[in-house]
């Protein structure tokens, strides 16, 4: 009995990781196409029809590139950093409900678990920065660390409103409660929370306009300056999985998860995937539009604006809840 469950779990795990990594690969293609067209370019067109094999080619190239380790690097940490990043991000996937029947681990503290794991990912980044023994990497790592800590608070607080309305931290139950709510999605009653979530989502994943940890113009490539080949691609994958995880949280907590205006037969995860890709498109769209924030502006925005706003949202939600009941 236990053994059967174990093999089933393993198969589920392998399929999940593979599917997500494929999505990561094609998210890069999607990003390059979207940003290309927004800048009136074409994006990848050469490898395969419409450049569709470009991610595969990139993967092969990165895999076979030389793995350079700086002489002054702290080797064990240098090796461990990208793995910490990737593992932390991959383990977030376990609690995400893609449709009512597909969730690897149906935890009661799903949301908190994701926070815990994404805060760990910042360790990978900061250790990469330190272990590389290069000033660019180090500055990138430090920036990333302070940014992630600051915005995690705002993000956690923005989701408290959702927790209050649902009364649960189980992601499946959040979606179910949302379907039963008058609007069907929490983005409307929780619009302040949604706004705070979206901004801190961008900051948490180190995306433009908050991409200070890897600001090309100042820091070469930030914390992954000294990384090359497959180790660099692990960081890259971690970043994109992070984006997918954040998009999933947004979908689950604010946009109604797998529920849609009508049910699509045979593809229960259709709406979930669509919403994730809508949010991913938003990531790329913002990247194509906005310039980078200055560091002190970033901190001001996080501490002086988003956190008070999220706290006000909690207060408002509590008030509304007591008034309505």
């Amino acid at each position, binding site marked *: 009995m236990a053994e059967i469950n174990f093999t089933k779990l393993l198969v589920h795990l392998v399929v999940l990781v593979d599917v997500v990594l494929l999505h990561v690969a094609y998210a890069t293609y999607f990003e390059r196409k979207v940003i290309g067209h927004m800048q009136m370019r074409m994006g990848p067109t050469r490898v395969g029809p419409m450049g569709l094999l470009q991610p595969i080619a990139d993967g092969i190239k990165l895999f076979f590139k030389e793995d350079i380790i700086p002489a002054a690097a702290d080797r064990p940490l240098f090796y461990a950093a990208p793995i910490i990043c990737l593992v932390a991000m991959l383990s977030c996937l376990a609690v995400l409900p893609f449709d009512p029947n597909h969730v690897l681990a149906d935890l009661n503290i799903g949301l*908190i678990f994701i926070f*815990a794991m994404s*805060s760990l990912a910042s*360790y990978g980044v*900061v250790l990469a920065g330190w272990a590389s023994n290069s000033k660019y990497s*180090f500055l990138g790592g430090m920036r990333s*660390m*302070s940014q992630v*800590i600051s915005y995690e608070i705002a993000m956690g607080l923005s989701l408290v409103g959702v927790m209050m309305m649902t009364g649960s931290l189980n992601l499946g139950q959040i979606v179910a409660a949302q379907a039963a709510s008058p609007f069907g999605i929490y983005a409307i009653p929780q619009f302040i929370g949604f706004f705070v979530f979206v901004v801190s989502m961008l900051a948490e994943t180190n995306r433009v306009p908050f991409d200070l940890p890897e600001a090309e113009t100042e820091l070469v490539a930030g914390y992954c300056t000294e990384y090359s080949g497959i180790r660099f691609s692990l960081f890259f994958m971690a970043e994109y999985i992070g984006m997918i995880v954040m998009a999933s949280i947004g979908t689950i907590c604010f946009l109604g998860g797998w529920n849609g205006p009508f049910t699509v037969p045979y593809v229960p995860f259709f709406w979930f995937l669509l919403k994730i890709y809508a949010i991913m498109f938003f990531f790329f769209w913002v990247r194509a539009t906005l310039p980078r924030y200055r560091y002190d502006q970033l901190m001001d925005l996080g*501490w002086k604006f988003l956190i008070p706003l999220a706290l006000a949202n909690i207060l408002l939600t509590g008030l509304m809840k007591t008034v309505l009941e």
Partner: protein
Amino acid sequence: MISLSQLLFAYLATAITGLALLAVNARNPVHSVLLVLAMFFHMAGLYLTLNAEFLAAVQIIVYAGAILVLYLFVVFLVNLKEEIRVKRFVVSQHYAILLAIGLCVLLVSNMDSFALGISGPWTIEAIQQTTHIKALGRELFTTYLLPFEITGLILLVAVIGGLVLAREDKATTKGNSDDENAETKGVHQ
């Protein structure tokens, strides 16, 4: 017969002790912080075996995700590559070892007097029924309201203290950009 959970406990306990010792003995402060991080993970695992999943998650978020990161900040800012070797504080290492062994013997000899506390209304089943967070919240805001509020007050004092320190800093040295960091620390600790 040793059950699986006992085996798990044995592993976690030895890992916690071993990692703590390694963290104390590590030459490199960053490695030391990382060993503490691994130790926190094992502690979270220990909480999981006790059905305290919320506590496990909070352990990771607060200790690993926030406090330890701030330690890391400090270690980075001080920029110690290797431990500075200074003369021992105590005259001889032997006294310290003797003291530690004595303490250990004292603790082990009193093992029998450890007794299980009275089990309250929250059995595992009850907690699973009302979910962990609800149970925790209800207890915190009813039975333990006073201690909770006192803790809140103490933290508020710490926050205000941090803010005051940061402001004073601003008045003396104009435009110091470190005041945000000071605020961060104030809120976390």
